[in-house]
C-alpha cells in the first residue's frame, strides 16, 4: 500500500518539530528514515501510526485519507525499540492479542498464530513469557504480533538498537526477508546508516524535521545532495577540507596545498569558499593528486587499517587501506586524492 505524507507539520506546544514534510512511499517498498537523534524520526512514525495527531497536512494510505482516523482503525503494525511485549502474557497470547480484540474465532486465531510463528521461526516458544526470551526472540515475537493481522503498513522504530552486534546482523536479514515475503510496505527508523543501506529500498535522510534527501542507498552514498548527507553516510566517515577557489582548483586554508576541483561538479564562482569531501577509500597512496601529511592516528580493524593524516594546516584526511599496517604513528606520508570521486559543496553545504 502506498503511503503519502503530504505537507506534514507537527508542533509540541510552541515548538515546531516538523514543518511541511512530504514523503511518498511506494507500495511494497521498505523505506529507511535515517537521521541524527532528535531530528523527528519517531515523531513522523507516530504520526503515521496515529499516536500523534498531525497539526497540518494529510496522510494517505493508498487513496484513503487517514489523517483523522484513530490508531485503532488505521491497520498499522508497529515494532517498538524495546518490543513492548505484554509481560503478563505468554508468546501465544501476545501474538494473538490483536486477533482477540477483533473477536476472531478460536480456530482462526490458532491457525493464524501457528502460521505466523513459522514465518518468524518461534514455533517452540509459544508458552514462554517475554521475560524468558532472548532479545532476538522477543524481537521476532514483536514482529509476529505486528504482522498477525495483515497490516497495510509496518513501522519499525529502531528495532535493532537493543541487540548485540551478531544478532543485529542476523535480524537485519530476517526482517528484510519477512518484509519481502509478506510484500508489506514498511518504514524503518534508524540512526545507523549501515542498517538503512543494507535493509531498505530507499533511504530518506532527515535533519531538523526536514527530509534532506530521498534516494536509493547507493545513490545516497555516491551522490549526496549536501555535506550533511555526505557526512552522515559512510563508515568510517568522510573528511572535509575547507578552501577558496583559484581558477579550476581549490587552495586549502592556511596552506600551500592546491587540489583540483572535481570535473563533474558545477563550476564555482572565482574566490568563493568551497568544502571538499574526501571519502577514506579515495585517499590512497597510488592516487595522483598528492597531499603531504603526518599520520596522527592508526586504527587496525583486522581486514583493513584506518589512518588519520593531519595536513600542514591542521585539517585531517582519513584513509582506509586493505594492506596491513605499513606505517607508524608520526610517519610523514604523501598520498593522493582521487579527484574524480571528490565531492564539492558550497558554503551552505549544498552540493556543487
Amino acid at each position, binding site marked *: 500500500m502506498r503511503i503519502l505524507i503530504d505537507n506534514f507539520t507537527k508542533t509540541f506546544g510552541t515548538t515546531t518539530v516538523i514543518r511541511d514534510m512530504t514523503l511518498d512511499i511506494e507500495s511494497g517498498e521498505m523505506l529507511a528514515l535515517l537521521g541524527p537523534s532528535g531530528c523527528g524520526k519517531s515523531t513522523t512514525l507516530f504520526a503515521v*501510526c496515529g*499516536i500523534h495527531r498531525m497539526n497540518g497536512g494529510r496522510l494517505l494510505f493508498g487513496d484513503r485519507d487517514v489523517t483523522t482516523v484513530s*490508531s485503532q482503525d488505521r491497520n498499522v503494525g508497529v515494532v*517498538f*525499540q524495546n518490543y513492548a511485549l505484554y509481560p*503478563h502474557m505468554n508468546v501465544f497470547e501476545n501474538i494473538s492479542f490483536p486477533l482477540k*480484540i477483533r473477536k476472531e474465532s478460536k480456530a482462526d486465531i490458532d491457525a493464524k498464530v501457528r502460521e505466523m510463528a513459522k514465518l518468524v521461526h518461534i514455533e517452540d516458544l509459544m508458552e514462554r513469557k517475554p521475560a524468558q526470551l532472548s532479545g532476538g526472540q522477543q524481537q521476532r515475537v514483536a514482529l509476529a504480533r505486528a504482522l498477525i493481522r495483515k497490516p497495510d503498513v509496518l513501522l519499525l522504530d529502531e528495532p535493532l538498537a537493543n541487540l548485540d552486534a551478531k544478532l543485529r546482523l542476523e535480524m537485519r536479514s530476517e526482517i528484510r526477508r519477512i518484509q519481502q515475503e509478506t510484500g508489506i510496505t514498511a518504514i524503518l527508523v534508524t540512526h545507523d546508516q549501515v542498517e538503512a543501506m543494507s535493509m531498505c529500498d530507499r533511504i530518506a535522510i532527515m535533519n531538523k524535521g526536514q527530509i534532506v534527501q530521498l534516494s536509493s542507498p547507493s545513490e545516497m552514498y555516491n551522490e549526496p545532495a549536501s555535506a550533511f548527507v555526505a557526512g552522515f553516510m559512510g563508515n568510517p566517515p568522510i573528511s572535509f577540507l575547507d578552501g577558496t577557489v583559484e581558477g579550476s582548483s581549490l587552495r586549502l586554508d592556511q596552506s600551500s596545498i592546491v587540489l583540483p576541483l572535481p570535473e563533474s561538479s558545477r563550476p564555482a564562482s572565482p574566490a568563493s569558499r568551497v568544502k571538499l569531501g574526501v571519502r577514506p577509500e579515495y585517499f590512497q597512496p597510488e592516487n595522483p593528486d598528492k597531499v603531504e601529511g603526518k599520520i596522527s592516528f592508526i586504527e587496525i580493524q583486522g581486514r583493513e587499517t584506518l589512518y588519520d593524516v593531519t595536513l600542514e594546516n591542521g585539517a585531517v584526511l582519513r584513509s582506509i587501506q586493505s594492506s596491513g599496517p605499513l606505517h607508524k604513528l608520526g610517519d610523514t606520508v604523501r598520498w593522493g586524492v582521487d579527484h574524480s570521486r571528490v565531492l564539492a559543496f558550497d558554503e551552505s553545504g549544498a552540493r556543487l
Partner: protein
Amino acid sequence: MTKNFKTLPVYILLSVLSLPLVIMYAYLVIDTFTVTTPGSLVPGPFTLHNWRFLWEPAKPGQASIWAATLNTFLFAGGTMLIVLMTSATAGYALSRLRMPMRSFMLAGLIMLHAFPTVTLIISVFLILQIIGLYDTLIGVILVRAALDLPLGVWIMKGFYDNVPWEIEMAGVQDGASRFTVWWRLILPQIQPGLAALGIFSFLQAWSEFILPQVLAPGANAQVLSVYMQAVVKSETQMDFTLFKTIGLFYTLPVVVIYLIFNKKLMNIYGGGTKG
C-alpha cells in the same frame, strides 16, 4: 554489607532502645493467656479465662464483639474496595489520558495529598448529620475512603507512570480501545501497586479510631476500636488484662496481614517521596 565495622555496639544500642516496645509486645501476649496477679510481673499458669468475652453474651448496654468484628471487616473491606477502585481509575486518567483541566487536577491532587484531613471532621460530622448518613457504616466508610483517596491516587499514578508507554501504544496499534488497553494490558502490570494500596488502606481503616468514634458511635455500626474504647471507659478499674485480650483479638488480623504481606506493603512508601 560493610563487614569492616563492628556491629556489637549497634546491636546493644538498638536493643536497649527497642526494649519498651518489646516488653509491651511480650506482655501483650503473655498476660492474655496467663493468670495475672496484680503487682507481679511473673506470669501465672496458663488460662483462657481472659478470652471469655468471645463466648459469653455481651453485657447489657454493650455491643457484641462479633458484631463489632463484622463491622470492622465491613468498614476496612469497604474502604479498601472504594479506595482501590477510585484510585485505579483516577490514577490512570491522571497518568495517561488527555483530558480537560488535567493539570488543575494534578495540582489539586498533590495539595490534597499533604492536606491535614482530620481538621475536616467537624464539618464532615455536620454534613453526615444533614444528609442522614450519621451513625451508619456506609457514611464512615465513604469518609475514610475519601480521606485515603489523594494518597491512593498518587500512589497509583506513580505505578502507572512506570509502565512503559510503548505497551500502551502497542495495545492501541493492536486495535484495542483505551479502556481495553487499561483493563487487559495496564492493570495487570500494576498489581503490586494495587496490592500495596489495598493492604495499606485495609490496615489503616482497621486501626482507625477517631472517625468511627465520632461519625458512627452507635451500637449498630460500632467497630472494634470504638467497642474497645467503650469497654475501657465503662470499666471503673483499669483491667489491663481484659483490655489487652480484646486488643490482641482486635489486632491479630493486622499483624498476620502485615507479617505475610509486608514486602508488598512497603511498595507504598517511596511512592510519596518521588518528586
